[in-house]
């Protein structure tokens, strides 16, 4: 469960730590501005009824991202027992 993955693969209820951002330009800045940087804890909260986007808890806020964008976020999924 410690292998790397991308944010779009995170299922509702699962936690992960951000490893790196592959997005570039404006999207990269926007993600950083909302606090999505290395070692940030994220939780997937749910998926919208259309199947995309999905909602994530990031630093106390809820942010919706399209799969196309969250695919650019590399994560390390956290097993339950490691969730702080």
């Amino acid at each position, binding site marked *: 469960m410690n292998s790397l993955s991308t944010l779009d693969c995170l299922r509702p209820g699962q936690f992960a730590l951000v490893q790196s951002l592959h997005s570039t330009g404006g999207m990269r800045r926007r993600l950083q501005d909302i606090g999505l940087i290395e070692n940030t804890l994220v939780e997937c909260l749910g998926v*919208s*009824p259309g199947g995309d986007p999905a909602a994530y808890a990031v*630093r*106390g806020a809820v942010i919706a991202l399209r799969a*196309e964008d969250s695919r650019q976020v590399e994560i390390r999924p956290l097993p339950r027992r490691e969730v702080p």
Partner: protein
Amino acid sequence: MGLTKSSTGRRAGGELTDFSRLREGRQLVALAGNPNVGKSTVFNRLTHMNQHTGNWPGKTVTSAQGLCRTEKRELVLVDIPGTYSLMAHSAEEEVARDFICFGGAEAVVVVCDATCLERNMNLALQTMEISRRVLLCVNLLDEAEKKQIRLDLPLLSRRLGVPVIGVSARQKSSRTALLQALDRLLDGPEQRDSYRVRYPAPVEEAVARLLPLAEAAVRGRLDARFLCLRLLEGDEKLLDGADRYLDGALSRQGELLLAAEKERLALAARGIDRDGLEDLLVSALVMAGEELCHGVVRLDREGYSLRDRRIDRVLTGRRLGYPLMALLLAGVFYLTIAGANLPSDLLMGALFRLQERLAALMAALGAPPWLRGVLVDGAYRVLAWVTAVMLPPMAIFFPLFTLLEDAGYLPRVAYNLDRPFQRCAACGKQALTMAMGFGCNAAGVVGCRIIDSERERLLAVLTNSFVPCNGRFPTLIALLGMFFVGSASGSLSTLLSALLLTLLILLGVGTTFAATRLLSATVLKGVPSSFVLELPPYRRPQLLRVLVRSVLDRTLFVLGRAAAVAAPAGALLWLLANLRLGGESLLALAAGFLDPLGRLMGMDGAILLAFLLGFPANEIVFPIIIMIYTAQGSLSQLGDLAQIKALLLGQGWTWSTALCVMLFSLLHWPCSTTVLTVRKETGSLKWTAAAVLLPTAAGFLACTLTAAFTQLLGI
């Protein structure tokens, strides 16, 4: 049909420079903050103004300014657009940053969300890098308390070295505390020793080497450290602005610019290019925020509480998300229709009794018949129609809608609808602007500024009028009641009307998708851009405030507009009906001229004429239809909907006519206010014309096809 900066014109917040009127030697204070932290509520609290507030990010797209009286002074408060950062990645951020840097603000109040303090620190820390007088206003303490988030604000204040004040701006009592804090801030010394974010060593070393030169250039008018960081970034726009602000002192400092260039190259040699540098800066800011909040924020696992999780699981759930959206819409319509019936009847009765009195009074005063006709039968009567038929549904729908907005439901709509919009290569935030269109299309068009990509913003602007505004609902409701609900009575008929209206609105929404898709496949080609949408916590709506404000604001606004538009239109109508040319009234001539086109579209000339005359305000279209028919003779006294129906039937209406009128009401040119707004927002006549022609063409097609179809089937 290129998509250039010039084709979409002025960007958000462009009017930030015009406050000379209020200025007059008063001190200027800027109000900054993340989107959706209650900045507008704080602003309203301090200025006694009534900026519209709502629970979704990006609501304040235009910047407001107002006078604020403290005990010791009178100052101008400027509400700058909500941003997460001042790195100037978007137009709003650029506006916000430029204002804080060069706007001449004496101090900056950074409004933060208590339920999500850490995220807000990024902006606060960046603001502190620019301004030497910063007040942190931690808002929404009441919400934090409900979520059992405890905050040690004195500790935060000690750590930051700037005053921190906790408020619940929705409560009146917060005002005094804020005003006193403002006075203390402006009376006190500059914050020379406030907290400074430490960046990684290579950056700090470079800054240290540039600092003496920078200090010589700015001479205390701008923060030297901030300038050094931007020099390292090579942020041309900001540096140009700084140079103008410093009257060219920057470009004269050749030595500084040269040194900065050298440091940039040195950083690049160490693998830190411009993007890498920004990464370092942002990471340092975010981590500093995390550290500063450690021990300040307690017992908060997530700002997103269990209650919100439960609500979201239902409202945005796979199975229930869409049906619940439709159901909520139908529910709002049901309440609107059910609530509007009685006041409508009462108003109609009262206003028409008054008309008889007015006519009698004018006769007694010896007014000539033509004057009586223009004023009473013309101006007053249309005014009465607008008030009686249109006002009650609007006065109910608007507060209901505002309640949903206040509670935080609208961003969920955008979240739910993003997928379909994505398929149309558009932005999910278009759902927000569409929802605003229900209130007022002009407001919806202005709201499109929340969409970052210019192409996607244009899509939203051009398709906004496919959802009917508040001014068009009553027409739809009246026609549904008369022609489609049939003999059903009481609450059943109300329910049926609400369901049919929902279907009609869904048709409008469907058309929005179709038109968006058509546009993005033809003149506005492109790929969907990235999308970050914040889903704010649900908040209990301020029931009383919403009711009072929206009824009062809305009522006054509608009555004002009705008086301004309906009365002259009524007078004009009376004249048209009574001035004759070759034995026929001008009205009959105009209606006759339009008749063939009207018939083709399943309506008649009078209806089409009413739509044309209703260009200034959709509210008056249906009243004008009735006026035209009554002016042509027959009935003059109409007490209720049954009599109106009899009048319409007498003019040859069938259910197919009513259907075509409803379709055309849903799909036709936007009202004059909206058209002017589109012109202003796009800065282009071409796109304005498109915004008029697109819905008109859709309406023409829909009506013509419906008419042909019903005639073909002989029904």
